[in-house]
């Protein structure tokens, strides 16, 4: 016996919406916290980067800190390095993740252990994987020792510089290790949910292997792949720990540069640190807008379903 009521309905689209007051009571606390702490934090950051110092008397806003940063040749170097590392890590991790997801979809239901192990990197803090990469790849690290024992190099000086290096190899390795499971699991969730049925339909319709990939799998996973990649890009663009431990001293990645200025003994450098933080947020915001624009344009041209 089911009790009919006006509340019952299949899903959110058909269910009658309760009064505004109920919604406010349910969502009010969460939205208030996010608006006050996140919105407030960004707003106050912006004000401070515009030279607003409450202690020194308010009022005059200036863009001189932004001008100083943008005019600094180091900033351009840092920005380019950061873009290069974030973009490369994201593209490499996304590419491997698509392959991993396709392999795991056939493997995972039968092999829960592999599936569980695959989740382990998600629980490992970035700080720990950075330390592990340093122990592995530093000139006196484990890899260097193995290569020397194999007789390929004759001293630690011959080992290629893979951490604190020009090309950010160590940083990217740490990020790729950490982000592949993140992206793969996001793709797998979608593939499991809708992809399998579609694939069966494709098989009945005699779609070839390549056709199934091109017309079924890629369009199905594209939205979540794009979203996951965007999150990874934003994270690698704005995270501090890994580049601080594995990056070179010049040029630094932007987050390290921002924090260096922010924590400078010279308090006048602080607004510049915050301004750099705001520029990081700006680049991330531009990336979101661009990604959305691109995927919409692609959808209009029928490139992706």
């Amino acid at each position, binding site marked *: 016996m089911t009790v009919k*009521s006006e*509340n019952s309905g299949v899903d*959110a*689209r058909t*269910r009658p*919406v*309760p009064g505004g007051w109920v*919604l406010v009571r*349910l*969502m009010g*606390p*969460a*939205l208030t*916290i*996010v*608006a006050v*702490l*996140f919105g407030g*934090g*960004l707003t*106050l*950051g*912006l004000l*401070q980067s515009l030279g607003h110092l*409450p202690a020194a008397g308010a009022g005059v806003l200036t863009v001189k800190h932004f001008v100083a940063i943008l005019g600094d040749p180091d900033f351009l170097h840092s920005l380019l390095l950061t873009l290069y590392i974030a973009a490369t890590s994201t593209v490499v991790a996304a590419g491997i993740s698509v392959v*991993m997801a396709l*392999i795991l979809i056939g493997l995972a239901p039968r092999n829960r252990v*592999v599936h569980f*192990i*695959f*989740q382990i*990197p*998600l*629980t490992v*803090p970035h*700080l*720990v994987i950075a*330390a*592990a990469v340093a*122990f592995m790849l530093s000139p006196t690290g484990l890899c*260097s*020792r193995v290569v020397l*024992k194999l007789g390929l190099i004759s001293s630690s000086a011959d080992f290629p510089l893979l951490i604190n290096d020009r090309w950010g190899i160590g940083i990217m390795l740490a990020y790729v*290790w950490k982000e592949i499971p*993140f992206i793969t*699991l996001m793709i*797998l*969730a979608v593939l499991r949910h809708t992809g399998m049925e579609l694939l069966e339909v494709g098989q009945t319709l005699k779609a070839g292997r390549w056709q199934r990939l091109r017309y079924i799998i890629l369009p199905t996973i594209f939205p979540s792949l794009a979203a996951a990649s965007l*999150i990874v890009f*934003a994270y690698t*663009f*704005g*995270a*501090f*720990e890994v580049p601080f431990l594995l990056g070179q001293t010049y040029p630094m990645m932007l987050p390290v540069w921002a*924090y260096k200025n922010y924590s400078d003994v010279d308090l006048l450098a602080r607004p510049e640190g915050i301004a750099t*933080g705001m520029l*990081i*947020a700006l680049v991330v915001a531009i990336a*979101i807008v661009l990604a959305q624009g691109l995927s919409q344009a692609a959808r209009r041209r029928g490139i992706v379903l």
Partner: protein
Amino acid sequence: MIGLARKIVAGGVVAAVILPFIPLIMWSFSNRWFYPDLWPRPWGTRAWEYVLGIAGSQITAALGRSLWVAAVTAVMAVVVGTPAGRALGLYDFKGKDLVSVLLTLPVIVPPLCVAMGLHLWFIKLGLAETFGGVVLVHLTFCLPYTVFVMWGVFSNYNLDFEDQARSLGASTLQVMYRVMLPLTFSGIVVAGLFAFLLSWSQYLSTLIIGGGKITTLPILLFALMGSGDRPVAASVSIVFVVPAFLALLLSARHLGRRSITGVR
């Protein structure tokens, strides 16, 4: 043929996940390990004796503080995030897209930007260098995750059960504890796990708001990494990984096939 290929892939995945832990474990059990020796000579527990002995109280204090910050953050995020997830999962209403964007932003914008902005304000409010301040800044990023998890849970939730309980005379509170809580419990555990893991691995926001006074485990580990004592840094890294791993293991039952998709 395909079976063999799959086995190789499975082996490769396991190896790739385990590989970074090998140098950590080896270094943590080395007394001395000069270049270019392949093995520590001698193996030993000097680092572990230091970490669990002389520095034991310091490490335990940091471990406890980290656990406490992450647990309080997770509980607050779940308590505040569950009702919001319920509203978003059950109903379509005007402005839902806007709410979704507002909640997505803290997931994407780096914590660094927000923590720097909040710092001065927190100093004024007396929240800087306090436990509460650190929890609040962590909550800024953890809360949206719990809302998103609970949003997903409530979009598959059947309200009829609550209506039936109510028609049988259950009070609002009884409906909450006897119907809603058991039905969504797995989701709540997962949401809490997300928030816990996210808070657990925070470094820079803790450093900025905590000002070095709230020494969580990552703060301590960072200081050790700088000191150059590899065996000690390696063993503290392991101490840092284990609780997060245990949290995953303990909630594996609730994760089911969903897995921890989306955690950062």
